């Protein structure tokens, strides 16, 4: 990467004044930020990449759900949802209805907030055709995995926000300094020399990074945009003053409350929901509503929020209409496009989440995320391979730091996918009526990861790479069998029925298992590196 130059951090020494070229300095930043934040970023990338398949994983982990249906008239589904809420949540202060719209929201789902503050919202899945509740097992699903990529786990929210913000900034810096360090973008893009030790790891690192560089830059920058309200509070103070309420005033102007009213306590029947949905459709030139949010349902002061689809384009934004509950008159409107700057922020958030991505773009998102994992993993391995060779050349022992990174690398890189597989196994094997089941699924995941890390700490790295690749191969490869033994939506049923989400998950897991098996075979063959 840097030839003979040593990537020390200081550009030109403050005393010796020996000039080092800019590339060397940037290589130093790249290396040290990479090694310090690599493992955390790998976790964020791996869980975030699974987020691009979140609703597919949700579905697999709730095998009780039938394949999604979008064909029904939405008015009917909405009426079913409201009937259900009327029966089961008549005293609630808020009802939310998510219509089955697309890949992101495949099911009719209701949620309600009880009157007493502090109580958690309850939710239920409904059959869009009949309005009957579908009993589903308690699971964290794909959402729990997806949320880990910024919430981490077992840690307080205020703390993880800062950790994730710093790691994201480290990633952005590693990318920018990596660009400065890297000179031969186009040549290296087509260069992958296998089984050449350090050179192969560098090639792998370069190919994975350069191929997806626009994605990686977008994802790190937009990731910081998600967190910017928390980590740049002084900017708010510049315009809103230093009073403690400045932040609240800012949020109030950015997301103004719409037609707020308090409950009157007088019960009045609400306007038919079909009328509101049609009114919204006319208002939005044919675009349909995706969700309803009803404040004070059944009250004389009921407020019906009709919400458009946030995933209709890369700009993550939707129109919202607020109707008077009893008369059905339009009280307030928030258009999808409010101003260029709000839309810029919405665009960055939308690009990051990729909710708008269709069947063509979604695989590209997935591939870019996976290559991001490869970029980080190969960078971490490259760091150790380089230092190992140096210590061999110098006939000195490897430093303890190097030995630890060498040993733990496979425990992170392969141990995490194994932990994901364990999470899926837990979903099928934990008793369906278990209390706090979703919590224990995650405990199983992190427990298995701890075991993998412990094994890695006690074992020679080459052996850990091989053994854990086999464990991962088994963990993923056997998932279709697990599904066959524990549910009725196995490949024998899902393939003939054309249930592509269920079949796709099983086949995807099988493919992943085969890839891990190939990797393990590859590592068994004698050769330098790895």
């Amino acid at each position, binding site marked *: 990467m840097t030839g003979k130059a040593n990537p020390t951090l*200081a550009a030109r020494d403050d005393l010796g004044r020996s000039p080092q070229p800019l590339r060397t300095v940037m290589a*130093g*930043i790249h290396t040290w930020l990479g090694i310090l934040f690599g493992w955390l970023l790998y976790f964020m990338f791996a869980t975030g990449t699974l987020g691009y398949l979140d609703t597919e994983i949700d579905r697999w982990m709730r095998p009780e759900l039938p394949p999604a249906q979008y064909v029904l008239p939405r008015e009917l589904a909405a009426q079913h949802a409201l009937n259900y809420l009327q029966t089961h949540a008549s005293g609630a202060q808020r009802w939310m209805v998510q219509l089955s719209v697309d890949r992101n929201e495949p099911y009719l789902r209701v949620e309600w907030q009880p009157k007493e503050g502090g109580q958690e919202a309850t939710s239920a899945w409904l059959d869009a055709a009949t309005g009957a509740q579908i009993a589903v097992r308690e699971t964290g699903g794909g959402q729990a995995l997806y949320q880990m990529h910024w919430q981490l786990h077992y840690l307080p929210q205020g703390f993880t926000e800062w950790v994730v913000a710093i790691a994201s900034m480290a990633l952005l810096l590693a990318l920018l*300094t990596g660009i400065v360090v890297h000179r031969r973008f186009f040549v290296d893009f087509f260069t992958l020399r296998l089984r050449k030790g350090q050179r192969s790891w560098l090639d792998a690192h370069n190919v994975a990074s350069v191929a997806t560089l626009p994605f990686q830059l977008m994802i790190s920058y937009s990731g910081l*945009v998600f967190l910017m309200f928390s980590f*740049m509070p002084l900017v708010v103070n510049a315009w809103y003053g230093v009073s403690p309420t400045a932040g609240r005033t*800012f949020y109030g102007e950015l997301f103004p409350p719409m037609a707020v009213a308090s409950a009157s306590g007088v019960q009045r029947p609400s306007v038919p929901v079909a009328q509101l949905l049609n009114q919204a459709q006319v208002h939005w030139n044919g675009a349909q509503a995706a969700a309803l949010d009803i404040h004070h349902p059944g009250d004389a002061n009921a407020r019906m929020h009709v919400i458009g689809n946030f995933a209709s384009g890369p700009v993550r934004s939707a129109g919202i209409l607020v109707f008077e509950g009893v008369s059905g008159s339009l009280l307030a409107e928030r258009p999808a496009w409010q*101003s260029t700057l709000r839309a810029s922020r919405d665009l960055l958030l939308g690009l990051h989440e990729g909710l708008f991505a269709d069947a063509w773009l979604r695989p590209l998102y997935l591939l870019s995320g996976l290559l991001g994992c490869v970029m980080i993993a190969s960078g971490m391995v490259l760091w150790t391979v380089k230092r190992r060779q140096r210590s061999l050349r110098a006939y000195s022992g490897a430093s303890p730091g190097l030995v630890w990174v060498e040993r733990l690398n496979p425990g992170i890189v392969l141990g995490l996918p194994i932990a994901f597989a364990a999470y899926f196994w837990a979903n099928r094997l934990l008793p369906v009526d278990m209390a706090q089941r979703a919590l224990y699924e995650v405990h199983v995941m992190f427990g298995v990861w701890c075991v993998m890390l412990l094994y890695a700490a006690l074992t020679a790295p080459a052996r850990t790479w091989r053994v854990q690749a086999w464990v991962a191969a088994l963990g993923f490869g056997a998932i279709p069998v697990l599904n066959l033994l524990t549910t009725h939506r196995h490949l024998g049923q899902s393939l003939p029925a054309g249930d592509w989400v269920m079949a796709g998950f099983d086949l995807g897991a099988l493919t992943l298992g085969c890839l891990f098996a190939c990797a393990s075979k590859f590592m068994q063959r004698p050769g330098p590196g790895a």
Partner: protein
Amino acid sequence: MRQTAQQPGKKPASQPWCVLSRTLAGGVGGYALAQVLPVALVAPWGLPRADAVLAAMLLGILVYAIAFMAAFAAVSAHRAWLNLALWMLVSGGAVWWLL
């Protein structure tokens, strides 16, 4: 960290302190600058204030990244701090004058 061939006349012990000093300049100083310089840049646009905050924050992320790299690209750690202080002073003055 691996020891390299030392330049003549250079104290080996000096380097970690320089790195720490630059890391602080880039990490902490850059963080401060990222919340002041964009405010000075955005204030003259005359945006509604909620939008102005968004614009300054979107720019602030880039300012932070550039400031961090600049702290390491500077000739010396002292120079890195000096540059940072100058930028802070100029942009802070501009903010005070504009808002």
